[in-house]
């Protein structure tokens, strides 16, 4: 019956609304953008947001024998600040990572500068060469530093062979500086690449202009090249600083007793310490502290820029 009825305009609207909706959706830039982003957004929600919610939730529980007491409490955060060990090691980790970021950027800048300005042919090969160490496992790179810095390692046996020293130096490995050296090498590419990109983007005519106006090479670098490459430097600093705060493999392998970092304490809480809620609380406080440190850094940079202008 119904199928034989002639189509009346009144039957149209639902489909028409839908079509119009679809048309507006396609027309709207942002809706289309989010549509295209949806796989990424879904992944972020599942892989980033959800774990953080779980972590914060877990940190509000308490560990009892064989399970959790699920009444919400801040007891783990109190433990964090009551026991001197946690704030102390977190502070130490921030300092180590700041040192790592500084060393890495200082060493990476000349390398990036060289590739951006001095290399004219086969730049790709140079970039590949820089990422070459990353083709081996992170663990292997840390181990190789243990071999280089070790008691009868490359440096010690080399110096003994040269006759500079008679007894191996024993301050090379198992301390904070070994952690800084190892991390600075391990994260070098993460600093070189962003700095290279920002140097590469600099309009060469600006540098020529500076020369034409009578600036020497040093002043040209300080007043033109360096400020223009600052975004890359900032990105490199953050890319190195943020992940290294939580590193625990490197301190475990080359840090000895004095080089332990917050990651080791988190691992201990989740491992043999068998106190997951406390480990979660340490992680949450670490993340907040790192966020704060990054904000302070960015604020400092913008103030510095304002001062220079």
């Amino acid at each position, binding site marked *: 019956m119904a199928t034989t009825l002639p189509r009346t305009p009144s039957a149209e609207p639902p489909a028409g609304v839908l079509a119009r909706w679809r048309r507006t959706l396609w027309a709207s830039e942002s809706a289309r953008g989010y549509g295209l982003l949806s796989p990424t957004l879904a992944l972020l929600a599942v892989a980033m947001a959800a774990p953080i919610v779980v972590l914060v939730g877990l940190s509000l529980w308490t560990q009892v024998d*064989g399970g959790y007491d699920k009444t919400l409490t801040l007891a783990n955060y109190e433990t964090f600040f009551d026991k001197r060990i946690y704030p102390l090691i977190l502070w130490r980790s921030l300092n180590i990572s700041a040192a790592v970021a500084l060393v890495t950027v200082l060493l990476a800048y000349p390398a990036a500068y060289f590739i951006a300005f001095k290399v004219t042919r086969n730049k790709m090969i140079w970039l590949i060469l820089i990422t070459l160490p990353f083709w081996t496992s992170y663990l292997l790179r840390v181990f190789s530093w243990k071999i280089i810095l070790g008691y009868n390692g490359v440096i010690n046996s080399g110096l003994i062979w040269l006759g500079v020293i008679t007894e191996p130096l024993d301050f090379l490995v198992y301390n904070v500086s070994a952690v800084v050296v190892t991390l600075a090498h391990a994260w070098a590419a993460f600093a070189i690449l962003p700095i290279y990109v920002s140097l590469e983007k600099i309009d060469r005519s600006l540098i020529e202009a500076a020369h034409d106006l009578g600036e020497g090479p040093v002043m040209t670098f300080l007043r033109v090249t360096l400020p223009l490459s600052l975004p890359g430097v900032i990105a490199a600093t953050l890319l190195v600083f943020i992940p290294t705060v939580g590193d625990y493999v490197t301190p475990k392998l080359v840090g000895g007793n004095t080089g332990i970092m917050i990651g080791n*304490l988190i691992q201990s809480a989740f*491992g043999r310490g068998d106190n997951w809620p406390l480990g979660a609380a340490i992680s949450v406080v670490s993340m907040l502290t790192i966020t704060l440190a990054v904000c302070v850094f960015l604020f400092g940079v913008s103030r510095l820029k304002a001062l220079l202008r």
Partner: protein
Amino acid sequence: MKTKHHHAVERRARAGLSALCGVAVLALGTLAAPVQAQDQPLLFSWPGYDAKELYPDYVARHGMFRFTAWGDEEEGVAKLKSGFNADVIMPCSYKLPKWRATGRIAPIDTSRLKNWPKVMASLKQMDGVMVDGKVMWVPIDWGNTSVVYRTDLAPEYVGKESWEILWDPKYKGRVAAFDSLVDAVVVAGLLAGNPDMFDYSDPAHLEAARVKMRELVNQVKFFSNDPTTLEQAIASGEVVAATVWNESVVRLKKQGLKVAYMNPKEGMMTWVCGLSIIAGSEHMDKAHELIDAMLATPSRVWEIENFGYGVSTQEAFEAVGDEKLQALGLSKNPEQALAAGIFQKPIVNEKGLQEMFDEVKAGL
């Protein structure tokens, strides 16, 4: 014309994108699927116990099983608790209550172990073998935790062997120790003069051990649970003394180094380790076969000769011969050997001791 072209490009891009998404989803699906069927049991054990010579019967029949090593048992228990799926584990006597508390230790059907009758009666009577009339743990080997030292670098300790070498100011920065409570930290309690080096329920005893541990933290080059790391440090002369198990001494002596394994005046520590099966294992038959293979005489002989440990079957000792046993400093009688040292027990207030250890390592 331009807009038409633009639309075509966009359409093509969109089609390409959805194809890409499809590929990505497919890839994720493939990753999520099991890589291969797991038809071998997983042995979760001490580093070095993946040597196939320790399980010759099993390897001949089924090939190699899967293996994962723990750093120490505290780590192992924590991993099992958080859902790690093992089939067979190798716990030691002092840790059995903690493993059992996970509720994941299954009874062992000894009628399926043709080598079970070979296990020495005195070991079968140990605490932890039988629980509620069922066998839960099969003793496999026993050995020591003590100090290995370079007799050429620290000759004054020859004949005057003592744990104190780790605290000797002369060797500051030239000693190393296990990163473990039962194999290292309790020694601080022993030297602090605590009445029971395994009991830290009294805060005064914990404090006494803390004072000793603070000194040790400043003494050691590093703490490590990896026998290879400790052996290499001794071999290179980086450290003159380190806590190790017998197997490290056997290997160091094979390298021709001038080392000796201390029998400290305070006593060396002794332990017994064995095998248990995890409840709900999908490989019950193979798990039993794995245990049986480790009780077989060729396996036990290999462990005596290569690790220098005592083993749980008399037959293996007979097969090795007295001369070799003497060279390894091994007694055929476990009761005698275990009574001669400090038998490692479950630690009371383990959590407090672990916290103390973490704190002194951080310099507090």
